[in-house]
């Protein structure tokens, strides 16, 4: 159940919310939509789910265009909107029944799907409670159950874990992974670890445009910043900048080094290493030779966080 998005642009009044976005989602893929708040994630999702039309551009879901076959598209999609709106005066079963009726499920299938959703989403204990009485975690499960009651091939989840506590986040993530196995899923988030934990592919979007598109590891490689090593040394020298700094700087593979600070005889350096080299061994030997006592040595790879930060910051700086 592939989704094809082409040249999507949306204006709110004169404000451009998204600008010429194009991407494809393959069948069975879990796509993470990543971006700071207000980047255009929600707008894109609202367009795909037929809540509102784009100003220009097209979206096809399984070959059906949102403009010409809106009802077909909506039948295929399960949607969890941002902030998970629910009818608080209904109880869980009533609400799921309502959702399945709106999807036109017949009685037998409705009963079967209700039982299935209650089971999979862990709603058994609360099924006769009013939704208004439920905790946020349970409400999120109800929202997911509602989105999947008609066994859609496509799931669109707008910030499915926002506002949950860490335990609930893990639960919901597992649920999404489990339920999304046979489906095409688009989920948006501004939490990076979420993307790494759940998604096959990431699209980073900033100020209405796509700034990166690839698997998490591809992105890391593509936007590979240098790796860095942080060390802390104990050495009785009068001036670290003249006595230690040049010696570190001159090691093979060191691109740049930064003196972070000192307390008493302890000196910290952050060293940026050129691509593909590992200077830790040389650093150790150097320290032994110079009789520095090596207190700490940490290597940091480029995290998706840095990629994200760099991509979204760069846009800001251009302005």
């Amino acid at each position: 159940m592939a989704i094809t998005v082409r040249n999507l642009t949306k204006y709110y009044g004169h404000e451009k919310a998204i600008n010429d976005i194009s991407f494809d989602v393959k069948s069975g893929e879990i796509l993470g939509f990543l971006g700071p708040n207000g980047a255009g994630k929600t707008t894109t999702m609202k367009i795909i789910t037929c809540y509102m039309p784009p100003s220009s551009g097209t979206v096809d879901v399984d070959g059906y265009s949102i403009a010409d076959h809106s009802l077909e598209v909506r039948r295929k999609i399960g949607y969890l909107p941002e902030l998970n709106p629910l009818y608080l005066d209904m109880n869980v079963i009533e609400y799921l029944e309502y959702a399945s009726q709106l999807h036109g499920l017949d009685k037998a299938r409705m009963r079967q799907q209700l039982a299935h959703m209650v089971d999979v989403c862990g709603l058994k204990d609360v099924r006769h409670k009013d939704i208004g009485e439920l905790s946020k975690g349970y409400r999120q499960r109800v929202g997911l159950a509602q989105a999947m009651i008609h066994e859609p091939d496509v799931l669109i989840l707008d910030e499915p874990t926002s506002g949950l506590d860490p335990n609930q986040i893990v639960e919901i993530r597992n649920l999404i992974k489990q339920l999304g196995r046979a489906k095409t899923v688009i989920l948006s988030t501004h939490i990076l670890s979420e993307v790494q934990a759940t998604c096959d592919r990431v699209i980073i979007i900033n100020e209405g445009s796509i700034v990166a598109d690839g698997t998490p590891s591809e992105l890391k490689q593509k936007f590979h910043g240098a790796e860095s090593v942080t060390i802390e040394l104990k050495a009785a020298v009068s001036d670290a900048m003249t006595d230690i700094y040049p010696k570190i700087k001159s090691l093979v593979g060191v691109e740049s080094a930064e003196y972070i600070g000192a307390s008493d005889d302890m000196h910290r350096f952050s060293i940026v290493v050129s691509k593909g080299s590992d200077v830790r061994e040389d650093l150790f030997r150097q320290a032994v030779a110079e009789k520095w006592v090596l207190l700490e040595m940490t290597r940091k790879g480029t995290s998706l966080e840095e990629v994200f930060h760099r991509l979204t910051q760069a846009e800001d700086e251009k302005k």
Partner: protein
Amino acid sequence: MNKTEIQASWNNIRTISRRELQSYFNSAIAYVVIVVFLAIIGWFHTSNLFLANIATMRLMFELVPLVFLFVVPAITMRLLSEEKKSGTIELLTTKPLHDYEIVFGKFLAAWALVGVALLLTLVYYLTITSIGKIDNGPVVGGYFGLMLTAGVYVAIGLFASSLTENQVIAFIIGFVFVFVLLMLDKILIYVPESLASIVEFLGIDYHFSNIARGVIDTRDAMYFLSLIGFMLYLTVLSLGRRRW
């Protein structure tokens, strides 16, 4: 539209209606509205009945459109504004439904609730028939006219509710709108003569009093039905505003 499509459409409308009615009766709204309505009608109805000393429902029929002026906007104010405020409108409109199914379903639910309240006033009819002889023609006409009037009020209230997220504002808009329609034939003396007949024709009271006399004219019925249709159409347009 073929037969299965109509069937599917009707199923959707029924689903929406049922949920809306359920929500009226789950909350206190339905009971409060019915009790308040019956109390007001009962009070004025019985207090004048014996003074007039005529076995007639006319007093009640003249009063109900005024009481509806307050009651109906109170029933309809939440129909769409609440969905907008809580964001559930996004759930509803991304389900495989036509906008008109949502609008019509909600209209029917509120109309049915008003109908229930009206049905309960049959108690007053029964009390009158027990103490005197009543002409049934105007009673049937009166109820028919009241239902049509209620339909117009509900359609207006629903439209008002589609305009805003705020229920109080929805109430006020609905109230003012209905009030104007109700007053149209009372301000005729201020209207230039050439326009008077048009203004009179637009007012609710003119058509209602025709029907309430027991004369059910298609022109009057058409007035009510087309006004309902027009307001519902405006509501569908207003719901579609997100697409603009």
